[in-house]
């Protein structure tokens, strides 16, 4: 085969002056639609679709009360993951960055979450006819932050890490924290906290930011434990997976792959790094026709000879021996 330039190859591909044959595109479309509809309906009938019921705060508070209370205490004293997240929830954490690129910081706090106020103080304020709880909240609000931290540290140690809350706390100075947490746990177990976190702005709600952030903050990994059981953790390539044995978002394989590469996945800026890698690769994917080398691989690895074998056979037989 004589050496040809890319320009000549491109020119050769611009149009076709050779033979045509009749082809019914509309019939092809109808057949394709019928085949696809049949496959999809049969698959739906055979396998159905997963629908694991959503977790509620009430359920969390009932099934793992120690975890719930420990998390609520962390929200109260501002030591939880959400409390120290940074933008877009608050200013208390370091935004992810690579070199000078700090988009999280640039876009700022757009969905403010004040964890002690939103998850503890405000819901407790909705409890009617309980002067002891309101007094405990006033005592908390009037204390210094050092005092508050001493109370919460002591309380967290006092309740331990078992499955149930101790009937009696060991001797110590816990301030108003036990009263507040007991009231909050009761509110949560009754279902009132699910509603309180949603209706804090207005009657109609479609924004689940606060309850979802609270559940994902679970210090003893209640929520994460549910995900792990379904192989949905990041370390389990979970981005691709679905609950049960269903196929998931298989097309996310390359996105989750980078998190498994140790220097990237273990970095504090892992999410931003992975996004930047995928943004560059996506741009390159769009621009494949312009990329030297990549655009020539189909010519070097001649899979096309299989695809167009009929055409090349006809060419050979029409050129024939002289």
């Amino acid at each position, binding site marked *: 085969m004589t050496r040809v330039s890319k320009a000549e190859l491109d020119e050769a591909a611009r149009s076709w002056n050779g033979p045509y*044959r009749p*082809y019914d595109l509309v019939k092809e479309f109808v057949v394709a639609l019928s085949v696809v509809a049949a496959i999809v309906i049969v698959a739906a009938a055979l*396998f159905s679709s997963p629908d694991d019921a959503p977790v509620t705060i009430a*359920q969390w508070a009932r099934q793992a009360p120690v975890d719930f209370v420990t998390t609520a205490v962390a929200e109260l004293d501002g030591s939880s993951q959400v409390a120290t997240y940074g933008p877009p929830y608050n200013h208390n954490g370091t935004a992810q960055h690579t070199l000078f690129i700090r988009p999280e910081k640039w876009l700022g706090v757009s969905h403010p979450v004040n964890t002690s106020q939103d998850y503890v103080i405000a819901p407790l304020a909705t409890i009617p006819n309980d002067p002891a709880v309101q007094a405990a909240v006033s005592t908390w609000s009037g204390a210094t932050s050092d005092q508050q931290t001493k109370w919460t540290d002591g309380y967290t140690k006092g309740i331990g890490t078992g499955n149930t809350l101790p009937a009696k706390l060991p001797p110590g100075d816990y301030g108003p924290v036990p009263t507040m947490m007991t009231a909050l746990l009761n509110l949560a177990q009754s279902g009132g906290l699910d509603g309180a976190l949603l209706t804090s702005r207005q009657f109609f709600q479609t924004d689940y930011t606060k309850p979802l952030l609270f559940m994902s903050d679970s210090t003893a990994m209640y929520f994460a434990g549910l995900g792990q059981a379904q192989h949905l953790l990041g370390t389990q390539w979970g981005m691709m997976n679905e609950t049960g044995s269903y196929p998931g978002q298989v097309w996310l394989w390359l996105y989750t792959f980078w998190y498994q590469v140790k220097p990237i996945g273990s970095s504090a800026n892992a999410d931003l790094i992975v996004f930047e890698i995928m943004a560059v690769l996506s741009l390159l994917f769009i621009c494949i026709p312009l990329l030297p080398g990549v655009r020539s691989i189909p010519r070097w690895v001649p899979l096309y000879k299989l695809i167009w074998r009929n055409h090349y056979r006809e060419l050979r037989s029409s050129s024939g021996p002289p």
Partner: protein
Amino acid sequence: MAWGHRRLSVETVLLGAIINLNHPAHVVHWHFFQMSLANLVVIVVMIVVFAAAIALPFPTHGRGGS
């Protein structure tokens, strides 16, 4: 850990899964690579279908439509 599978009505069961996939996934491990069996099946079938699409002869002989 039971976090509340929804109780299904009879019609849901009838219109639902003949093959129940609502059990913990089988996972294939290979070095640091892990994938659920369902996803692996999808990928393997894609490769097989691609190879078949190229290898299998396509009916022509002047007929219209596939």
